Structures are given as C-alpha cells and as structure tokens.
C-alpha cells in the first residue's frame, strides 16, 4: 500500500467517523448559544474554540461534516448514476444519433459551471442543501459520461469485445458484462476526485448562501459568518478552512493512492 493511500484513507475516515459520531454525540450542543462565551480561542472546554454565538466550533464542524459529505456523496451518485449509463450507451453506438445527442448535451452542461447552475436553481426555487446537491450533481453528469465513453471506446476496439460480439452477445449486455467492470477502476478513482470537488463546491455554495440554510451547520457558512470576525478572532476562520483543506486533501490522496494501486495509467480528469 502506498503512502498516499494510507494517509488519504486515514484522513478521510477521520471525517467520516466524526460525521457519523455527530449523530449520537457531540462535545457540545450546536444550538446552544452562549454570548458570554463568544469567540473564545481553543481551550480545554472548547477544543477548537467558540464562534460568534459562543457555540463550540468542534461540534459545529462535526455536524457540518454531515452536510458536506451528504451533499458531495449524493452529487457523485447523481453524476455516476446518470453519467455512466449515458457514457456506456454513447460508446456502444459510436458515431450514432444517440452518441451525438449525448455528447452535445454534455457540451451544453459543461457550458454551465456548477455555480451558475446553482444560481439559476436558487433564483427559481430558493437556496437549500437539496438545490446544492442538484447543482453539483448535474455538473458531475458530463464528467462521468465523458470519461466512461472515452474508456469504453478504447475497450470496444479490443479483440475480447469483438470475441464477445461474435459470441452473439448484445451491445447492452457487452456494455454491462465486459465494459463496465473494466472501467470500474477508473470510475472509483474519478468518483473520489469528484467527491473532493463536491466538498469544495458545497463549501463555496453555502459560503455565498446558496447551500444549506440555517440552522443546519455547514462549513461554508461557518466561514461566511467568520468573515467579519476574522480580525477579532482569526481561529473562527482558520479552523473551518483548515478542516475543508484536510478533508479535500485526504480525498485527493485517497484518489491518487487508489489510482496507483488499481492502475497507474488510468486517465482521470481534474478540472
């Protein structure tokens, strides 16, 4: 096992465990405000200090991890669930109408950065975590469709696929039975990367108020709240920021480690 894999796996698990733990236990309540105890630096009572309402930052981060992970995970699920079948279908009929339509739709979605999608959705339906998920998820679809199609196309040229065709299998069946398992590694690695990008995107959206709404804690909004306090108590901005960096770094290391362990030649996309 590579160093990347271990370090990334450890970092990622810390956040997942913290998020799961927050369902049953947090050091302090995230709703209890205590104005007298506001903006306190880290101490034995509040390991990571308190925010401008006197809430325990560690507890906020633990609950916020739930939001981040849930949003990013579901968004990856949407991207994979729709993008992979589309990519497989496009590759199975290369150059056909379906391929053309799918790829043009991809290009179209690529023209809408996820933040722009979020703005559009928010403008119409109002801000919420669900809308953040949809915005990030929609943006993930062409990413998965494109890499799946690319990998599948090169597999379709391989002789074992031709052998399967000669054996009378349909294109759909070949896609599921032969192509999908052979692109699985790529999807796992790309999934990890999209997960980390999802965490970043969610933080950005909730920072500008387009993500999870109060009282649901989220990392991005913690930073938004911290902005005016940054000169008074730098830790309220520093700690949530470093948390995001650590989580994203962990996922990226995990992705690199997985790629090295599964197949170093995988062509992942990072943009």
């Amino acid at each position: 096992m590579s160093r990347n894999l271990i370090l990334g796996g450890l970092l990622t698990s810390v956040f997942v465990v913290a998020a799961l733990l927050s369902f049953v236990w947090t050091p302090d309540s995230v709703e209890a405000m205590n104005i007298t105890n506001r903006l306190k630096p880290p101490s034995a009572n509040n390991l990571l200090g308190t925010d401008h309402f006197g809430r325990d930052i560690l507890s906020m981060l633990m609950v916020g991890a739930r939001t981040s992970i849930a949003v990013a995970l579901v968004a990856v699920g949407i991207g994979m669930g729709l993008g992979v079948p589309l990519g497989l279908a496009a590759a199975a009929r290369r150059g056909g109408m379906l391929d053309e339509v799918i790829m043009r739709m991809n290009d179209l979605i690529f023209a809408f950065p996820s933040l722009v999608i979020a703005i559009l959705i928010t403008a119409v339906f109002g801000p919420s975590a669900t809308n953040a998920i949809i915005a990030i998820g929609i943006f993930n679809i062409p990413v998965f469709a494109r890499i799946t199609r690319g990998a599948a196309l090169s597999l379709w040229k391989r002789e074992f696929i031709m052998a399967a065709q000669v054996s009378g299998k349909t294109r759909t069946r070949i896609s599921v039975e032969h192509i999908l398992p052979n692109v699985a590694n790529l999807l796992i690695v790309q999934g990890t990367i999209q997960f980390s990008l999802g965490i970043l995107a969610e933080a950005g959206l909730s920072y500008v108020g387009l993500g999870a709404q109060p009282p649901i804690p989220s990392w991005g909004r913690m930073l938004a709240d911290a902005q005016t306090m940054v000169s008074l108590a730098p830790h309220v901005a520093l700690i949530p920021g470093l948390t995001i960096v650590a989580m994203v770094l962990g996922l990226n290391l995990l992705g690199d480690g997985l790629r090295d362990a599964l197949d170093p030649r995988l062509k992942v996309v990072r943009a």
Partner: protein
Amino acid sequence: MLGYIVKRLISLAISLIVASVVIFVVVEIAPGDPASFMLGINAQPDTVAALRTELGLDQSKFDRYLSWVGGMLTGDFGTSYTYRTPVAQMIVDRMWVSLPLALFALTLSTLIAFPAGIFAAARRGGPGDLAVTGATQLGVAIPNFWFAMMLVLIFAIQLRWFSAGGFPGWEKGFWGGMKALTLPAIALALPQAAILTRVMRSSLLDILGEDFMRTARAKGLSARQALWRHGLRNALIPVLTIIGLQFAFLLAGAIIIEQVFFLPGLGRLIFQAITQRDLIVVESVVMLLVFAVIMVNFLVDLAYAAVDPRLRTRV
C-alpha cells in the same frame, strides 16, 4: 482550415441557442409574478396589469423568448425589475471589474503553472518534482474563498499592504484598480494554478514516453532540448483544454471572490438580483456567463488547430 472554423461556428451557434432556451425555460418556471413582486402586496390589480404590459409579461412565452434573444443581439438586455434601469448598462459597469479580474487570474495561473509544470516534469521523481507535486496537492485542496480570507487577514489586516476590499474604480487610475484586484486575483489563481501545474506536468510526462521523443534523442538532442523543442508543443494540447475550462471556473469563481472582497462585479450584481427576485438580471447575467464559456471553448478549438496540424486538414 476554413471548414474547421465554419463547423465550429455552427456548433457554437447551436450551443448558444440551446443554452438560451434552457435558461429562459428555467426562469419561466420560477413561481410568482415579477410585476406583483415589484409593486408589493398592496398594489392595485390595474397597476399590476399596466406594469405587466410595460415589462412585456402579457405576451406569449414564445414571443417573450424571441424578444429577449432579439434584444440581447441588439444589446438591449431589458429593464431591471428592481431598479428600472437598462440591464445592459448594469452589466457593462460590472463587467469592468469581473472581466479584468478573471483575465488577471488566468494570466497569473498560467504564469505560475507553466514553469512549475515543466520544472517538475523535467525532474521527474526528484526532490524538485516532489516539492512541486506536494504544493499542488495542497493547492487543489484549498477553497479559494477561504484562501482569499486568509490573504485579507495577512496582507490587509496585519501588514496593511492592501485594502481589505472594495474597488476605487478605473477612473481613479489604472494602478489603483489593479491593486484592488491583486489579492482577489491571487486568491482565484493559486488553486487553479495548482490544477494547471498538475496537468502540465502529467501531459509532459505522457509526451516524454512517446516514440518521437526517443527519435529526437537519437538525433543528438539532449534530454532538455528534446523536452523544449518536441515535448512542449505536443503537451500543450491537453493543457489548452484545461485553460479553457478554467476560464469558466474563474468567471464563476470570481462571483464568490467578489463577495469576499466586496467588489462591485457581476457576482455582487447577481446575488443582489437573486435576493430581490430581479429575474431578468439573473437571466441575462447567466446567459452572459454561458456565452463567455462557449466563446472561450470556441477559441480553444481554434488554438488546437494552430497547435496541431492534424486538425487543420480535417474538416
């Protein structure tokens, strides 16, 4: 070559049309009537009706789409529901902040990434490579708006080299404007530079494994000469794709960064518009952003053809 351009132009036009339809339809779904919203709950029904006529809301959806698109083509983006001023003027004013910011950031990102990527690829596996790769690993993990806050904390609040936000306006002098945009541009550029460096490095490393690089060595080029003369231009093709994508991210990312630095750009405009349900502004700014992305992709396609002669002969 001409055929290539014409084909790209046609696909560009189609993308723009489809995108405009999507945006129009999404905004149409929005609940609530802008006229009633603007006039408040106590408005008389006939005033609302008059305003609806004035805003063109009483026409059929298809007619409104046509007049929206037709208006944009002639530079008329309609009238803001909230401010009752032409949207086009509002956008132009804000563009003078957002566009320079994105370009500034793109320039910075490219200026950092090219040397760093080449440096790392040329020293594959060495300490220099590890340092660059480690730095990019960190760079891609940093949220740009948080990085922006940290820059403000250090350079504006602690060191007082820059102001913490705001924009003096270009009419107060070019350098003043650039100074106000410096921290935002750095905040935008660094995470993008990290991505671009990684792409540059891996693209170069891919090329280093190509047969023609060995041919170059066999001719008597040193490893470095082969990298510069044969590797770079070939490695540029995937890098161009990413630069194109990044411009889109920079424009969109600028929206968030403008919030951090209180810059009066498109980002501030769009967030004000959302809170005030000024949908015609949202619609137009989104269309403009999408237009910019599609245009940049078109330019990237042209750049491909300039770099890769194989594309020129194809139609």
